[in-house]
């Protein structure tokens, strides 16, 4: 028996409780304005976790690339509907991409700093990038990719920023843990340090 049929309730086919739950989850996902976590789905459906997970796996079978124009995806720590990739061209004719359109190199570097090191303040961003960060930060806030996250400790502390769920969604990340590790570049710092010390030594002798 084909799985998607199990979601369809009508005369002649038994409507199992899990199908009803899957329909409720569908409904929640189609009205939500952000990805919904498993916990949110459990709370809203007032059902149990295992059953909600089963419903989600039924739905991801039904709503997947090549089979449906609506695709269920994992994003920003939750579940959300999006358009199928095959419809990208049609979507491009109707919808703008205000969040990521025209992101400058400065904006991407700032995003990288906030994503890897956040919460981080404007002065810290400026220190790392070597140029003032004010307008870049303002534009990223306006796009909804970063948001305020309190101030630095102490009097007169600067506002700090973190990346948002929208950032994760736009870049197709389920969580920030999916950002590539940059540890292997640590060796770089070593060799740079040695070179600088060499120069300093040469000067002193």
């Amino acid at each position, binding site marked *: 028996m084909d799985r998607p049929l199990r979601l369809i309730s009508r005369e002649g086919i038994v409507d199992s409780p899990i199908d009803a739950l899957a329909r409720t989850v569908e409904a929640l996902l189609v009205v939500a304005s952000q990805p919904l976590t498993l916990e949110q789905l459990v709370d809203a459906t007032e059902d149990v976790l295992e059953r909600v997970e089963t419903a989600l796996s039924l739905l991801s079978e039904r709503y997947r690339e090549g089979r449906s124009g609506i695709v269920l995806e994992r994003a920003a720590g939750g579940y959300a*509907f999006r358009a199928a990739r095959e419809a990208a061209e049609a979507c491009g004719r109707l919808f703008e991409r205000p969040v990521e359109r025209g992101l400058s190199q400065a904006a991407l*570097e700032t995003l990288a700093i906030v994503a890897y090191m956040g919460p981080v303040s404007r002065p810290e961003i400026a220190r*790392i990038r070597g140029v003032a960060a004010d307008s870049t930060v303002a534009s990223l806030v306006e796009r909804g990719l970063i948001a305020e996250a309190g101030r630095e400790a102490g009097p*007169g502390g600067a506002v700090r920023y973190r990346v948002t769920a929208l950032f994760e969604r736009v870049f197709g990340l389920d969580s920030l843990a999916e950002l590539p590790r940059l540890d292997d570049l640590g060796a770089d710092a070593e060799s740079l*340090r040695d070179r600088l010390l060499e120069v300093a030594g040469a000067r002193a002798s």
Partner: protein
Amino acid sequence: MPSAVRDLELDLDAFEGPFDLLLTLVLKEQLEPAEVDIAAIVVAFVEHLTARERIDLDACGEFLVLVAALLEIKARQLFPDEGAELAELEPEEAAEELARRLAEYRRMKEAAAWLRERLVEERERYFRLGPAPLAPRPERRLAPQDPAALALALAGLAAPPPKVSLSHMALRFPPVAQFLERFRAVLRRRRVFDFDGEVVGLSRVEQAVAFLALLELRKSGEVALAQAAPFAPIRVSRPEKERMQQWTVRSA
């Protein structure tokens, strides 16, 4: 007058030609200061000096001003706002700190490149921004709040920020273009003028930049320079036939 500093021939990775052209290109932002190996310039100058019979103190002074300016520009580009902080460290600590920051920035540049690639990969994914067309509009409710938090928030905003040392920003560079325009304007009014008379009252650094502008004008054939004797005023006039110098710039 040939100058031991201006005509100092350099052969660096990023640049080949006389020192004054290098400075001009850096000030006009046509050459990345980060690419310039300043230690190599110092070595070249010291070799140049030792090849001469006696120490040219004037040349040393001019060189110090110009190379300090170059260092300042390079340092400012690499580590804005950090000069004072680094100055308090021991050389080894400073080297370590510098290396750490350079590596940090390089990592962030790589992360930015990864994000850019990711955007390209993900550009076929469209999703809804904002609420669904027929979704209910939620009402946000807030628990009772303590008004003291408001006073505290304002007190935080009224607290003066920690002091940031700006001592290393003391050297300010006027753009070369400013002096280019200034000298052109003077030459439209007068056929000849004294360089010293035009720059009197300016700081050493401003004089150095003005001098670079003058060299630039001579190079492009817009002015002719003459000096009656060493240390005599430099006379600037509208051009006659001037020898064009052959300089080459190699890209990094």
